[in-house]
């Protein structure tokens, strides 16, 4: 459990059996997910996987067909969005275009601290306590704006702000109310690439500073991998794998997880177990599948950085490939090749510039390419797509 303010425990979020359909389309299928207090949990997946719907159900903007949402150990299913004490940052920021930055950020506090009559035009001026309440609200707004470095923008309207500034205002509007849970729906997707990288670290810092629970939705695996304490990878209304970023990258539970996480994507090759602990791909035997029955069709996943150009007479397992194209990315190179032989499966190899230069000097980068396989980045999946435990071989480069 994380810590918030002066020792108060941050609230966790527990989802049990959340299901949702839009008409005949099943969007979420019985999602169970326990998010710990103070955690930065990212829901990541391709568009249409149900991650945004799940977030909106937590916020109360959408009603689940079945299942229950609990925040801080208490069910919130019967509560309106504003009563759940959660804040949300929308993809479009959803700032009120006719209000100043200060007005936008003050809105959630006005709604809570003023009565309906005190919010109505004209009538509101009759309230003697309103000016005092508003002064208090504005002081809090200014304090939050200062931490976000947007205090000088308080009198501007959203149309006069840059994308990054609007993003901060949206964060500020969410922060002023000191919510128990912070929900974010693709908040960085409208920013340009450089700003996105910058905001990633700012969000991570913000999370560390506030110490409250963050639930973050994105389709961008890089965002998921860089900011989160845990990631839930979703597809077609299910959670495929829940774990730390390292778990997902190093121990993908299924082919689908392996395919989604990692850029450039993992190389997937079809092979067959030989019953003696090896997998044959195109005649090459990789000794990585102990205890798999002979003739079993398997999928071998090899991370691009697990392949290395090698001399043809290498003493480890070597895949033979045809080099099609080499891309210089500066610090590293991408080699695009196809597996020699029947498969013609495409392969991507990622090596450092130093390794590339050495291999080129050694004459290893001809049209015929021999690729040594490093077991650390190699994964084995059965015909059902589930992971098969791989024995790590020692002594192979």
């Amino acid at each position, binding site marked *: 459990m994380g810590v918030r303010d002066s020792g108060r425990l941050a609230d966790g979020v527990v989802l049990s059996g959340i299901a949702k359909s839009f008409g005949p389309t099943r969007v979420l299928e019985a999602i169970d997910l326990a998010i710990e207090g103070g955690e930065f949990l990212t829901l990541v997946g391709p568009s249409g996987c149900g991650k945004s719907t799940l977030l*909106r159900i937590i*916020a*109360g*903007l959408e009603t689940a067909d079945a299942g229950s949402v609990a925040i801080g150990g208490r069910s919130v299913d019967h509560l*309106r*969005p*504003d009563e759940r004490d*959660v*804040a*949300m940052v*929308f*993809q*479009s920021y*959803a*700032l*009120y*275009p*006719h*209000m100043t930055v200060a007005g936008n950020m003050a*809105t*959630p506090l006005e*709604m*809570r601290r003023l009565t*309906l009559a005190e*919010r*109505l*035009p004209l009538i509101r001026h009759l309230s003697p306590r309103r000016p005092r309440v508003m002064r208090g609200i504005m002081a809090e707004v200014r304090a939050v704006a200062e931490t976000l470095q947007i205090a000088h923008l308080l009198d501007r309207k959203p*149309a006069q702000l840059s994308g990054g500034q609007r993003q901060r205002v949206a964060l500020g*509007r969410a922060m002023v*109310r000191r919510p128990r849970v912070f929900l974010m729906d693709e908040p960085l997707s409208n920013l340009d690439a450089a700003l996105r990288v910058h905001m990633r670290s700012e969000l991570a810092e913000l999370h560390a500073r506030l110490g409250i629970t963050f639930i973050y939705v994105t389709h961008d695996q890089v965002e998921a991998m860089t900011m989160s304490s845990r990631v839930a990878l979703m597809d077609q209304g299910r959670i495929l794998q829940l774990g730390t970023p390292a778990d997902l990258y190093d121990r993908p539970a299924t082919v689908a997880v392996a395919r989604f996480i990692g850029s450039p994507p993992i190389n997937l090759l079809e092979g067959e177990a030989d019953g003696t602990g090896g997998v044959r791909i195109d005649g090459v035997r990789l000794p990585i599948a102990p205890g798999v029955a002979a003739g079993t069709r398997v999928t071998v996943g090899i991370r691009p950085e697990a392949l290395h150009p090698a001399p043809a007479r290498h003493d480890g397992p070597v895949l033979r490939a045809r080099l099609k194209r080499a891309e210089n990315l500066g610090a590293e190179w991408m080699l695009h090749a196809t597996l020699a032989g029947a498969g013609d499966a495409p392969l991507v190899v990622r090596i450092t510039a130093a390794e590339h230069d050495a291999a080129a000097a050694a004459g290893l980068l001809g049209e015929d390419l021999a690729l040594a396989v490093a077991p650390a980045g190699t994964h084995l999946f059965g015909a059902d797509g589930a992971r098969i435990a791989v024995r790590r071989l020692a002594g192979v480069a």
Partner: protein
Amino acid sequence: MSPRAPGSPQARTEARWGAIFAAPALLLIVVILLAPLAVLVALSATDYRLGAIAVRMIGLDNYAAMFADPVFQRSLRNTFLYVAFVLPVAVFGGLGVALLVHARIRTRTIYEVIYFLPVTSTLVAMATVWQFMLHPTLGPVTPLLADLGFGRIDLLNDPDFALGTLALIGIWQLIGFNMVLFLAGLSAIPRELYEAAALDGARYGADRFLRVTWPLLGPTTMFVTVTSTVTAFKVFDTVVVLTRGGPLGSTETLLYILYLEGFQYFRMGYAAAMTVVLLVFLAGLSILQARVLERKVHYA
């Protein structure tokens, strides 16, 4: 558009074809717009009557006569009364209907079609239908009003009611038009704003309306208001079909007496002066509208 070097072949082609393409439109603008406008202003300073041999310059006498003319004064008063009656109902009625229709899902199209029907229909034809409906002995409205305890009122022939009746028909024709404009404005409001408001604690309809709907509809509302004013200002068809200015001049409107003076009595100079006054009103409204449309850009 990318600026091109003057004198380049492309620039010469554009200059030539641009002139060729624009020429017919320019000719039409001169013949149909500019020349008549110049003639109009000149005419308003004469005592010209169609077919008259001699024409005299009389300066501003037409204008002086016009503002002293009780018929003109009455028509001005009637027109403003008509606008004052039609405008709020057509604008806020249109907004109200749009809000209600927008919230409907399955029945939305049906309501949209019914409320928009009067806009597309031929007003002259529908005015004859209204005349029949309001007929004191043959139509259904008079007995209906009598049953409701209003007594037997001949709405179109009673000086107290005729202008109001025309205004009701004007509203009947305008409200669907305004509804459609408001519906377009409503669908342009991002749903996320309502969701943000819900999370911010806007739990009452009044909060959502005042925080999101009304401010974001601001430009639409201004536009609808100006448009409705112009339309109401130009009321003519229903006057011709239903009352011809009567009874007792209670429905003489600006455009109707302009039509009478110019094309029935052929007092062209006098009618020209009246047209200039009309032009001033409408130009004022158009300038207001242009301002509004400029403001609309700021919100985007």
